[in-house]
């Protein structure tokens, strides 16, 4: 018995030292990281990776602010959330020279507005948010936001929206041609009225099952991310992803270095790992989104280059990032969202 206790204690001690030297705790979106890639990282570096997942930027922020800081090394916020987290002081600064592969970042993503100079983050994946339409149920022009907000009669009641305030509001603003953070009262009233009226045509708000409700035929139109749209089309060929002439939402998820990261060095190794074209291409092949790294071309699934979901037609409007509004403006948008969902 004594021997057993002693060996158990010895094992526990060994496990502890191993953890102190080679651990990495990742806070990541669900279904967004191929397990083989994590295994490859562990094989190359000997670092054990633990991953927790979240389903929205806001949920991640809430859990970090409610005591999650100091637990995780890296997280993967979307563009606007990088700016918010930096503003809240949740991000650590990556000094010059700390990332060996920083030069691999594609030039167009090297100095984005949400993280000038890439001092806190590296690109993970980027894509767009619009909607897919079942062309068997509707044969008209789908490249217009009217499909969501002022739908033809045959699509009314067959529309699923993402249960995500930021994305719905951004697309609605593009639909009306108004700024995303408007303080013009007339514009805001009109936006409120437009959304409350449009809701009568919507069947549901589902994010987790956005793809599944389209494939199953529960709805004929569904707001969706482009990569999910591609996966949906693979399961149901009549689905087509729309690029509205009024514009669509563009987003980029980024790996950020969190303040008080318990394994800061390993986090930097992980970021360097993800900046290697071969590795980040594996994520793109899995998630069907774009990588923000130069030289991925050789490693990408050839099908991705011609993916209709990733190649906007000439008629497509401008892509727009979700904007970060100030507190007073945001309060009005929150109120509008409550009015839509009450």
């Amino acid at each position, binding site marked *: 018995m004594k021997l057993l206790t002693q060996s158990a204690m010895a094992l526990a001690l060994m496990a502890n030292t191993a953890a102190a030297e080679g651990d990495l705790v990742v806070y990541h979106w669900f279904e967004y990281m191929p397990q083989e890639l994590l295994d490859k990282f562990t094989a190359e570096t000997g670092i054990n990776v633990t991953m927790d997942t979240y389903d*929205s930027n*806001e*949920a991640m*922020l*809430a859990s970090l*602010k*409610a005591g999650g800081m100091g637990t995780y090394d890296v997280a993967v916020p979307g563009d606007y959330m990088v700016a*918010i987290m930096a503003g*809240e002081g949740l991000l650590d600064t990556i000094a010059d020279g700390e990332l060996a592969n920083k030069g691999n970042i594609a030039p167009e993503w090297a100095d984005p507005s949400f993280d000038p100079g890439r001092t806190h983050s590296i690109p993970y994946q980027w894509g767009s948010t619009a909607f897919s339409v079942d062309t068997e149920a509707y044969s008209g022009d789908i490249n217009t936001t009217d499909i969501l907000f002022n739908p033809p009669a045959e699509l009314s009641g067959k529309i*699923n929206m993402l*249960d*995500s*305030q*930021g994305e719905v509001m951004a697309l609605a603003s593009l639909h009306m041609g108004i700024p995303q953070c408007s303080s013009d*009262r007339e514009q*805001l*009233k009109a936006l*409120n009225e437009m959304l409350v009226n449009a*809701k009568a045509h*919507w*069947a*549901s*708000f*589902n994010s987790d*099952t956005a793809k599944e409700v389209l494939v*199953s*035929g*529960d709805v004929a139109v569904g707001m969706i991310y482009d990569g999910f749209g591609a996966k949906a089309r693979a399961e149901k060929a009549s689905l087509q992803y729309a690029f509205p002439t009024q514009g669509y939402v563009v987003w980029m998820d980024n790996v950020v270095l969190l303040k008080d990261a318990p394994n800061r060095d390993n986090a930097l190794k992980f970021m360097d790992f993800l900046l290697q074209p071969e590795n980040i291409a594996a994520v793109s092949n899995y998630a069907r989104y774009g990588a923000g790294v130069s030289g991925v071309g050789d490693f990408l699934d050839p099908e991705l280059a011609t993916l209709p979901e990733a190649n906007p037609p000439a008629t497509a409007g401008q892509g727009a990032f979700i904007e970060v509004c100030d*507190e007073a403006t*945001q*309060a*009005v948008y*929150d*109120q*509008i*969202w*409550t*009015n839509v*969902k*009450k």
Partner: protein
Amino acid sequence: MAGGAASGGSSAADTYAGARNWLLMPSWVVLIVFVLAPVCMMLIYSFLTKEFRGGVIWEFSLKAYDQFFCDRGLFGDEPCAIEWTYITIFWRSIWQAGAATILSLIIGFPTAYFIATRPERTRAMWVFLITIPYWVNLLIRTVSMKFLLRDQGPLNDFLISIGLIDSPLHIINTNLAVQLGLFYSYLPFMVLPIYASVERYNFALSEAAADLYATKWTTLRRILLPAVKPGVIAGCILVFVPSLGAFLAPDLLGGAKNFMIGSLIEEQFKGNAGNWPFGAAASMILLTMVLIILLIFARQQRKAEATS
């Protein structure tokens, strides 16, 4: 064997009488740490100032309660009018939970009666059968329900194939789907307490009533129901209270088109609003409501016991 254990139990209580307070310690610690402390924290948070994008500033504020009861317009600068938004959300949840409770009672009572009137040897098996679906996670069961109910799902396919309907019944994303989901989630909480009551019921009383020319309906109403009332009330509470805060069924089966209490509170912490004090205030109001309902039930029960 069972009898020996029971008599041993009573003498054991005397043996440990001196240590009673110490033996109760673990329960007290659990109650204080996991029930009382979080509720106190919520109470305090509901009176603090909201921090932009989640979190609180440690300054006293009544704003969360003001937001709940006062409608100050889209821009928040109008005088206080009665805010119907949240009252509507609460009323919707109460109504849904109430409907689910009644549905559970209608199905659960005969089920419990059926089990309790089986021969003693087979009762355990029937109870066991009731609990089998609950070995699977609630989320998975709710998603499965969605598969079953959808327009092109097995239920509609079956009804069409036997010629009962021509076009699919549109159930998914309606209130009916939410009630079915809640009813299905919490049915055993109705069946089991009622079963426990009916099992203890002395069926000789029903026979006596029949001998005195009471109809079956009268016997049920005047003899059986009063005798098993505690079980019925317990079942109703156990179904109603969790249904009130449920958000899985409303989100997955109801399409999340309208806030329920549960999803409204969740949105304040996890969603875009990031309004922790308001979420805490809404939780406190819900808690108060549930307490009042429980007190009313408890009072009724005491009255019923006093008269019987």
